[in-house]
């Protein structure tokens, strides 16, 4: 696994994001302090409504109406113009979505070439050539002129990852990239992300699936718009080795909600069952990694 450096690419200080006004005001992010270093593979977990996706949207500069400080590669985001933000999204950030978000009327290759259009400087032919090269690394060169609906879920997500990577972004933001995939396709996608991580990319992934945290170098758990646990802080220093998610945060039960309304979220260590699940997941992953030849079996990728 590639070592993460101590160069911070993302620094959040007291980040808040609220929706609604007056009595209806709610904080989706409520004072998030977070530093993500270059080359980290961060998994963000947490129950629905905990602010994971909102955080990812903020990190991806899709949502800029925030309070607090957000520094991206040393630049304060709130000082950047809309054009600069768009340029950063185009050149430095790659998005992978749960629902793939390919444009249905464009072919696979045109979808992958799309970010190059907004980056500028490349003719149509060169854009397609570069997209084709990117698709080849995902063993999708035979599907270049397919339309998205003609692909399987796993293939579609690999196209989406190819699109996210075509501009060589330094940060990849993935919002539940395996949410719509079966377990086999999920692991293929996770292998791809893991590969990208090994090549030095910073990956921030939102997921509900604890199995997938085994791929990450750091696991952050969110609750009620706050970071409830962070393996980085639990272990003291960022580790170069795989860190097992040591804690999960659970909401107070609804029965005790009134009584516990003033109490902080309960932080518990993983149950024995969860630990066992994690072990199985790690073993599975190791097995898959072991079986992976340098040139992958094409069949695996066309499923």
């Amino acid at each position, binding site marked *: 696994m590639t070592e993460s450096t101590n160069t911070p690419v993302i620094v959040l200080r007291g980040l808040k994001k609220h929706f609604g006004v007056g009595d209806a005001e709610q904080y989706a992010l409520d004072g998030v302090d977070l530093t993500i270093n270059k080359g980290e593979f961060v998994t963000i977990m947490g129950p629905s409504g905990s602010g994971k996706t909102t955080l990812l*949207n903020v990190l*991806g500069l*899709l*949502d800029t109406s925030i309070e607090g400080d957000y520094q991206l590669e040393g630049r304060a985001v709130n000082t950047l113009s*809309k*054009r600069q933000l*768009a*340029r950063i*999204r*185009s*050149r430095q950030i790659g*998005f992978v*979505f749960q629902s793939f*978000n*390919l*444009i249905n*009327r*464009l072919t696979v290759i045109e979808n992958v070439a*799309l*970010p190059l*259009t*907004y*980056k*500028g*400087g*490349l*003719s*149509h032919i060169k*854009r397609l050539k570069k997209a084709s090269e990117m698709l080849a690394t995902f063993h999708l060169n035979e599907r270049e002129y397919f339309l998205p609906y003609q692909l399987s879920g796993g293939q579609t997500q690999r196209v989406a990852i190819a*699109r996210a990577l075509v*501009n060589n972004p330094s940060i990849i933001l993935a919002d539940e990239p395996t949410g719509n995939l079966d377990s086999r396709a999920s692991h293929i996608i996770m292998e791809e992300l893991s590969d990208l991580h090994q090549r030095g990319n910073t990956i921030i992934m939102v997921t509900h699936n604890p199995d997938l945290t085994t791929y990450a170098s750091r696991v952050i758990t969110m609750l009620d718009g706050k970071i409830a646990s962070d393996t980085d802080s639990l272990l003291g220093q960022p580790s170069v080795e795989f860190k097992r998610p040591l804690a999960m945060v659970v909401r107070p039960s609804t029965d005790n909600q009134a009584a516990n309304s003033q109490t902080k979220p309960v932080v518990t260590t993983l149950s024995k069952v969860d630990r066992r699940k994690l072990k199985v997941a790690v073993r599975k992953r190791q097995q898959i990694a072991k079986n992976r030849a340098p040139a992958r079996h094409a069949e695996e990728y066309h499923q």
Partner: protein
Amino acid sequence: MSRFLLSSHLQNARHSLRSNRSRTLLTILGIAIGVASITTIMSLGDGASQVVAQQISNLGGNLAIVRPGPSRTNFLTDITVPQGQNYATSTLTDSDVAAISALPHVKEIAPISVINSTITGQHSAPAGTPIVSTTPALSSVDGLQLDVGQFLDSNISQNTAVVGSNLARIIFGTTDALGQTAYIRGYNFTIIGVLKPLNQPINYNNIDFDNAIIIGQDIGRQLSNGSAQIQQINIRSDSAANLTSVVSSINKTLSAQHFGDKDFTVLANSDISQPTSELFYAVVGVTTSIAAISLFVGGIGIMNIMLVSVAERTREIGIRKAIGAHTTDIVWQFLIESLALSLSGGFLGYIAGYGLAFMISTALPFYPSFNWQIAAVSFGLSVLIGTIFGLYPAVRAARKDPIEALRYYS
């Protein structure tokens, strides 16, 4: 916007419009009808102007005319107000004619008054047949040629008339009408000449001489109860080179005669060739209104379709923004799409307009004209409509919140 992005937007517009062919065609149709109407009007109008211009050119380029009333420089006035002065007192008088004829370099002058009355020979002339009251100089000023007989002459009786070939056929049953008598308001007129067929229903005099009767100025004044309603004064300078100075002197002299009132218009050469027919202006008025309404409705059609397109592609807008599109990129994307619609409509309308103009011209004595101005107006109108009606949907698309847009499911 880089040329690569522009080509991408163009490709995108092609994709999008082709994916909804029937919707695209119906939208284009609205614009095509509007542009076709404009093209038809302009090509026929210009064709008519060229007919008159050719007539003036044949006369040697030394013709100037004076018409009552101020000049019309406003397009709207041109198409909405008929140019005849049939029911108003003319602002031109006999003393104006005398003053102009005294000017240097004025070779010949012919005032024209048109009287409306019934003409009877062996048969009655159709209602509205013009009775032209003028001087003998009209023959040489307008280059009128006679088939038989002679033109008006101040040395012979005033109760003589020259008749157009077609009118002669109508009221006397023959073009050989010399010596026949025509009756107008109780006066007898002996026909002393029949004009050669001109076949120029459209001309700068606004008179179809093939269907007119020409009488002397003095008798014409008697028919109008003593006052000549001068509709137009035709003047020829001694040379084409002196025409400008003649026009300038006429303007000065008439201004002095009219105490500074600019209630007359002096036209020379190409200015004369503007169509003068009331019917022409009526047709132009109606078709322009249709064209304007059609273009407006077509524009609304474009806006409507573009709004639908923006709604359908909300998610796509979110995706494009997420992968680096700036607000202006989205605006251009949709604006180019609406321009593609309007320009396609404009192109089809231009072709259809000429088709229509040629069909109409089979019933007219002239052909529609081709020139770059008509193409430029069609193109300009298409761009204008596409921009005006495409801008709002484009801006609306660009303003979409990318997060909301990505959540959208069509």
